[in-house]
């Protein structure tokens, strides 16, 4: 524990504090802006960190990561446009709250939830690092395959207006994920001889297109004068921030889920936030409130997305396997400083690791600080006239898309997808399922292939490991539970109609 003090000491100089502040601001801005995210920001700062103490460099990277993920909730709540992939679930109830004029409360909730998520997962990271190593290694391709199947069954429960529409959305997402060069065979799929398509679609671009641009079209065509229903802001930041404390079990459940999903490489906060949201809805006493502005609907995703940050750092530090794209950049930053990940990191240079933890803890505090400083001001956007807000959001969306790869085609893609998404939204097709399909598709396919190739190519590879059966059972259970639930609901509706 004295190592934690060493960590704190590393921060007690003005240069460190200055850089920490810059990281916080940068992280927040890039988090809130759709398109740019933690991965880009950290990779830009790595060269600057060469001239710094390694410990400070790690702290900066961890801070940016945390704050960025939190920052995504700003545009998610105020504009229904997720700033990062992890805030897509926050849009659902967060934006509804903003529309009711309660933007301040929603922002407060996300601040508090993000803080607890970050705190919780850092504690889990500190405590669990060594203990989780063996179980993590035991998960092989077969297990991961069934985990993604399980993830896809969640789609069934996310579609309120009919499972078929949800699954069609999922299929669209899966199909989009197949575009590009398949890694194992080198086979070009659906690329139509284009370089651009050879790399496949970028998740960030799809999110900007599906959520952002379609929202711009909605804003342009709605009769409402501003985002909030009236032009007065109600709600309180403070009330929002302590809301997670009023739902302790939900908060704990969300950050535990977020953490463990983060630990699994490849599965990141795009998944954990929806799983947390789903689980919150199922265990809530009033599930019908979800989708209309339920506070729990904001607590769950915001808590789990910050928890996923901590979780994704576990395999990164312990095994050198990045738990997510951003974690991959952090890994690169570590290696650039000569810090090799692995168990020896913990045994030979524990003080580095603890400094890192300190950074994560502190960034949690910064979340609260940012909350009080920026949010009261930012919430005003919801009472500005849409005629001014919508065009600005549109420009930001396109700028964000162009910041990914400076490729004009990204702008074309989000324009087209935005229009299609608007159409789908009007017809009650849940766009969420498209994103889920897109994210889970590659993980599912690669693991399926690996599991099969390990036994020479036969399907038996998928059933080879005993551990897989747990997930197979869970998937089957999840599907049947959904079907039963939908039948019950329809039964109830029919009764209502009759009486």
């Amino acid at each position: 524990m004295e190592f934690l003090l060493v960590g704190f000491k590393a921060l007690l100089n003005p240069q460190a504090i200055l850089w920490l502040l810059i990281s916080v601001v940068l992280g927040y801005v890039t988090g809130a802006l759709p398109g740019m995210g933690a991965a880009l920001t950290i990779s830009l700062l790595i060269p600057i960190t060469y001239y710094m103490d390694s410990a400070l460099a790690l702290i900066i990277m961890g801070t940016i990561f945390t704050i960025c993920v939190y920052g995504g909730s700003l545009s998610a709540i105020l504009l229904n446009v997720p700033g990062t992939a992890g805030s897509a679930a926050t849009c659902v109830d967060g934006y509804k709250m903003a529309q009711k004029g309660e933007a301040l409360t929603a922002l407060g909730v996300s601040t508090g939830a993000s803080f607890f998520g970050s705190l919780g997962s850092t504690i889990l990271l500190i405590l669990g690092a060594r203990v989780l190593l063996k179980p993590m290694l035991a998960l092989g391709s077969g297990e991961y395959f069934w985990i993604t199947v399980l993830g896809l069954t969640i789609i069934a429960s996310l579609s309120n207006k009919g499972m078929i529409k949800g699954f069609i959305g999922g299929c669209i997402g899966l199909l989009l994920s197949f575009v590009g060069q398949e890694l194992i065979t080198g086979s070009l799929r659906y690329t139509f001889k284009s370089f651009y398509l050879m790399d496949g679609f970028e998740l960030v671009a799809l999110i900007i297109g599906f959520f952002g641009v379609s929202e711009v079209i909605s804003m342009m065509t709605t009769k409402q004068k501003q985002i909030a229903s009236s032009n007065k802001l109600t709600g309180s930041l403070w009330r929002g921030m302590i809301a997670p404390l009023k739902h302790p079990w939900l908060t704990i459940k969300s950050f535990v889920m977020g953490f463990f999903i983060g630990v699994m490489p490849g599965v990141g906060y795009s998944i954990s936030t929806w799983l947390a949201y789903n689980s919150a809805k199922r265990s809530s006493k009033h599930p019908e409130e979800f989708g209309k502005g339920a506070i729990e609907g904001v607590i769950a995703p915001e808590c789990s997305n910050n928890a996923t940050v901590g979780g994704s750092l576990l395999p990164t530090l312990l095994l050198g396997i990045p738990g997510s794209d951003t974690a991959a950049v952090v890994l690169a930053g570590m290696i650039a400083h000569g810090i090799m990940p692995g168990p020896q990191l913990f045994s030979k240079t524990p003080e580095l690791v603890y400094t890192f933890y300190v950074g994560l803890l502190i960034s949690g505090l910064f979340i609260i600080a940012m909350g009080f400083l920026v949010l009261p001001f930012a919430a005003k956007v919801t009472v500005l006239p849409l005629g001014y807000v919508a065009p600005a959001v549109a420009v930001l969306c396109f700028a964000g898309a162009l910041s990914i790869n400076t490729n004009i085609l990204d702008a074309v893609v989000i324009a087209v997808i935005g229009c299609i998404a608007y159409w789908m939204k009007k017809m009650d097709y849940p766009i969420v399922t498209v994103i889920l399909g897109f994210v889970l598709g590659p993980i599912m396919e690669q693991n399926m292939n690996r599991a099969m190739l390990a036994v020479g190519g036969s399907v038996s590879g998928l059933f080879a490991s005993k551990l897989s059966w747990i997930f197979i059972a869970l998937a089957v259970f999840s599907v049947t539970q959904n079907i039963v639930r939908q039948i019950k609901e329809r039964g109830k509706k029919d009764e209502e109609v009759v009486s």
Partner: protein
Amino acid sequence: MKKTDKKEPKPEELIFAILIVIVGIAGFIIASDFSKRAKILPRFVTALMVVLGGIQVWNNRGEFAHMKNLNGFVKNKTLLLTILGILVYPLALRFLGFTVASVLFMFYLMYIRGLRAYLKMAILSVSVPVVVFLLFSSLAHVHLPTGPWGF
């Protein structure tokens, strides 16, 4: 399938469902050219799309009669103009550069939304793209598209 209480005609549902089936069939056929292992999931997914799309077509088969209701979409000027603007914007980005294209785009959107406070509109239309451009180039070294005038 859950039906809405009032029987509103929704011809677009039928159109979308037909599109899904078409995309599914096309995707399935194209997938036949992929190598053995690479075509497994694409074929499964596209086949599923055809099936699900087919179910949707069947569920909405009554909408064939309601096709003229599409006028509602065509008559919505704001919607059409917005979509037009969004689809043209990337072209403008390419040839006019980010800043100029965005200034024009913002002004255009404000106008079709009905705003007429020209001074306010102009100030906002110019300041947002300029600030974004400066922010992105200095902050993130992101090279937004530039027109022949360098911004």
